[in-house]
C-alpha cells in the first residue's frame, strides 16, 4: 500500500472508526488483565473471548461488503473461506498438542488414533510450523477463490446464478468435511487445543493478546478495503456493479477486476477464520453450513451495504443480539426476535443502519446549509475540504 493510497483512504469517518477499534483493542485487554476481577470497569475474560469472536465476524463482514457492496458479487459461500482459514489454523493448533493428546501420540491427533490412521496424511505435513500454517490461512482460501472465480467470472456467471453456485460450493465442502475419511476430524472437527506459539490458548493473557490481534487485523482489513475502494479501482468496481457491460465497452476487463476483489476478500475471510478458531476453541464443518454464509451477508445488510463501517457494525450488532436473546427468559423466542430484526431492517432501513444514518446526516447537513447564513454555511462545507486538502 503506497502512502498516497493510505492518506486518500483515511477520511474523517474512517479515522474515527479506526481510533475506536484501536482503543478497544488496547483498553479491553488492559482492563481485563490489570484491573482486579469483579470491579465494574474490569472486562471479564468471557467477554474478551466473546468480543474477540465478534471482531473476527466483523472482518468477515468487511470481506463480504467489499465484493457485495462495491462490486455487486453476492457470495452465499463466504463462510467456506472463513472456515478454510479456520481449519488451517486448527491444524496448526492440533499439531501443537503433541503428546498431550488423550492417547499421547506425538504425531497423530486423537481422532486419527481412534480411527486407526497409521500415519499422518500428506496434507497435514508442515502444519506443525506456524509460518506454514499462517501462509496456508491466506493461500488455501485465496487459491480456492481464485480458481472458482476464474471459472465463474470468465464464463460470465452473474447474479443469482453466481450466488447459488457459491452456495453449492460451500455445501459441497460441508459434506466433504463431514466425512470422517476426509481426515479433518469429521463432524467433531478440530478441538481441545493447547498452545499457540507456545502460549496456552486458555490463559487470560493469550486471550487478551488474541483479542488485540483481532482488532489489529480488523484495522488492517479495514485499511485495505478503504484504500481499494477509494482508489480508482474502487470506482471501476462500482462502475461494474452499476453497469457491467458499459464498463466492458469502456475497455475494462471486468473478470480480472472481479477476480481480484473476490480473491482478496477470500483471503481476508480466511484470516478472520484463523483468528476465530483459537478464541472459540473449535472448528467444525458446521462453519461451512450455507446458513452461516447467508447470515454473514445479513450482517452486512443490517449494518449498511457498501459502507464498510456498516458491515463491521452489523456483524457486531447482530451477533450481540444473538448472544443477548439466547440467554434468560427470551431463550425460547430468540429466533422470533432475530427473524423480525432481519425483516424489519430490510423493510424499514433498506440502506442498513449506517447507510440510513449517512443519508439522514447528509440531508440534515443540506438543510442546515440552506437555512444558515452563507458565511456559516461556508465553514460547514469547507470543513471536509480541509480534511481533503491534506491529501
Amino acid at each position: 500500500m503506497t502512502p498516497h493510497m493510505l492518506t486518500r483512504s483515511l477520511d474523517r469517518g474512517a479515522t474515527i472508526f479506526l481510533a475506536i477499534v484501536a482503543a478497544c483493542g488496547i483498553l479491553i485487554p488492559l482492563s481485563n488483565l490489570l484491573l482486579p476481577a469483579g470491579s465494574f470497569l474490569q472486562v471479564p475474560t468471557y467477554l474478551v473471548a466473546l468480543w474477540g469472536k465478534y471482531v473476527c465476524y466483523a472482518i468477515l463482514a468487511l470481506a463480504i461488503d467489499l465484493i457485495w457492496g462495491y462490486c455487486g458479487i453476492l457470495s452465499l459461500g463466504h463462510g467456506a473461506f472463513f472456515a478454510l482459514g479456520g481449519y488451517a489454523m486448527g491444524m496448526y493448533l492440533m499439531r501443537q498438542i503433541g503428546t498431550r493428546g488423550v492417547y499421547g501420540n506425538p504425531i497423530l491427533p486423537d481422532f486419527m488414533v481412534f480411527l486407526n490412521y497409521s500415519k499422518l496424511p500428506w496434507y497435514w505435513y508442515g502444519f506443525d510450523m506456524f509460518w506454514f500454517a499462517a501462509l496456508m490461512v491466506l493461500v488455501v482460501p485465496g487459491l480456492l477463490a481464485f480458481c472458482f472465480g476464474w471459472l465463474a467470472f470468465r464464463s460470465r456467471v452473474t447474479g443469482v446464478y453466481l450466488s447459488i453456485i457459491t452456495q453449492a460450493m460451500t455445501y459441497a465442502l460441508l459434506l466433504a468435511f463431514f466425512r470422517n475419511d476426509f481426515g479433518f476430524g469429521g463432524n467433531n472437527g478440530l478441538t481441545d487445543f493447547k498452545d499457540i506459539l507456545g502460549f496456552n490458548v486458555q490463559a487470560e493473557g493469550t486471550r487478551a493478546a488474541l483479542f488485540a490481534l483481532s482488532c489489529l487485523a480488523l484495522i488492517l482489513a479495514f485499511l485495505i478495503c478503504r484504500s481499494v475502494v477509494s482508489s480508482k479501482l474502487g470506482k471501476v468496481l462500482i462502475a461494474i456493479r452499476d453497469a457491467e457491460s458499459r464498463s466492458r465497452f469502456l475497455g475494462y476487463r471486468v473478470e480480472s477486476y472481479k477476480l481480484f476483489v473476490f480473491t482478496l476478500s477470500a483471503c481476508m475471510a480466511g484470516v478472520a477464520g484463523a483468528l476465530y478458531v483459537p478464541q472459540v476453541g473449535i472448528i467444525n464443518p458446521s462453519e461451512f453450513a450455507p446458513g452461516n454464509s447467508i447470515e454473514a451477508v445479513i450482517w452486512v445488510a443490517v449494518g449498511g451495504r457498501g459502507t464498510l463501517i456498516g458491515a463491521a457494525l452489523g456483524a457486531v450488532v447482530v451477533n450481540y443480539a444473538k448472544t443477548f436473546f439466547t440467554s434468560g427468559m427470551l431463550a425460547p423466542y430468540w429466533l422470533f426476535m432475530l427473524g423480525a430484526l432481519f425483516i424489519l431492517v430490510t423493510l424499514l432501513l433498506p440502506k442498513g443502519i449506517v447507510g440510513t444514518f449517512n443519508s439522514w446526516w447528509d440531508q440534515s447537513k443540506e438543510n442546515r446549509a440552506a437555512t444558515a447564513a452563507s458565511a456559516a454555511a461556508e465553514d460547514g462545507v469547507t470543513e471536509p475540504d480541509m480534511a481533503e486538502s491534506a491529501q
Partner: protein
Amino acid sequence: MNVMDTRATSAMLYLDGVHVSFDGFHAINNLSLTLEPGEMRAIIGPNGAGKTTMMDIITGKTKPDEGVVLFDGVTDLTRLDETRIAELGIGRKFQKPTVFESQTVQDNLLLALNVDHSVKGTLFWRGSKAESESIDKVLETIRLTEARNRLAGSLSHGQKQWLEIGMLLAQDPKLLLVDEPVAGMTDVETHLTAELLKEINKTHTVMVVEHDMTFVRELGVKVTCLHEGTVLAEGTIDQVSSNERVIEVYLGR
C-alpha cells in the same frame, strides 16, 4: 487478437454477409456495409430493423452466425470480446443512456479516460495534471462543467445523453458508434448535438443510428436504411427518403 498480414480493405469498418439469428428469428440477414476512415454515417430504419443488433456485433456483444466484420481492414472483430474491441478504439453510446449513476459526472469521465485499464494500473492510480485537464476539456465540450460534482443519476435525460457522448470523447476511440443520441431531446438540444457530432467527426469516424429525420438531415451525411436486418437503401438523405421501398417500409404496406 489476430491480425491479417495485409489490409483486406481500406475501410475503417467493413461488414460483409453477416448473419445472426436468435431462436430462429433472423435479426441480421446478409448485412454488408463499409465505413471509410473519417466518414460519418447515419443509419436509419424502422424498429426491429437490426440497427442495435448490428452495433452489438461490431462491439463484440453478439457473435454473428456467419459473415466478416473487419476493423481498420486488419482486425477480425468477430473473434474478440467487448473489452478487446474497446481497447482497439471502438466506442459506443447506448440507445438508452447508460452512465454510472451513483458516481459523479467527472468520475464518469475519469473512468472513460483512455489510460491504463489494468487492475494494477487503477489500484495504484494517482490523478495526473494531464488527466484532469483533458477531463475539464470534455466537460467544456459537453457543457457540464458546473455539474461536474453532481451524481450522474441526478442529471436530466438530455444531460445524460451528452455525458455519455462526453465519455466517448474521453475514451477517444477511432470509431464512434452512437445509438439514438437525440432521443428525448428538445429541438435546441438536438441542434446542439448535431453540431457536437459534426465537431467530433472532424477527428473521428462516426456511425449514428437515429430515427429523427430532421436530425439526420441536419447532419447531412450519407444515410443507410436498414430493414429486417439487411441494407434497404443507401445514399444522401434525399435519395433514400425518396426511395419507394423505404417509404413503403416506413409508411407501412
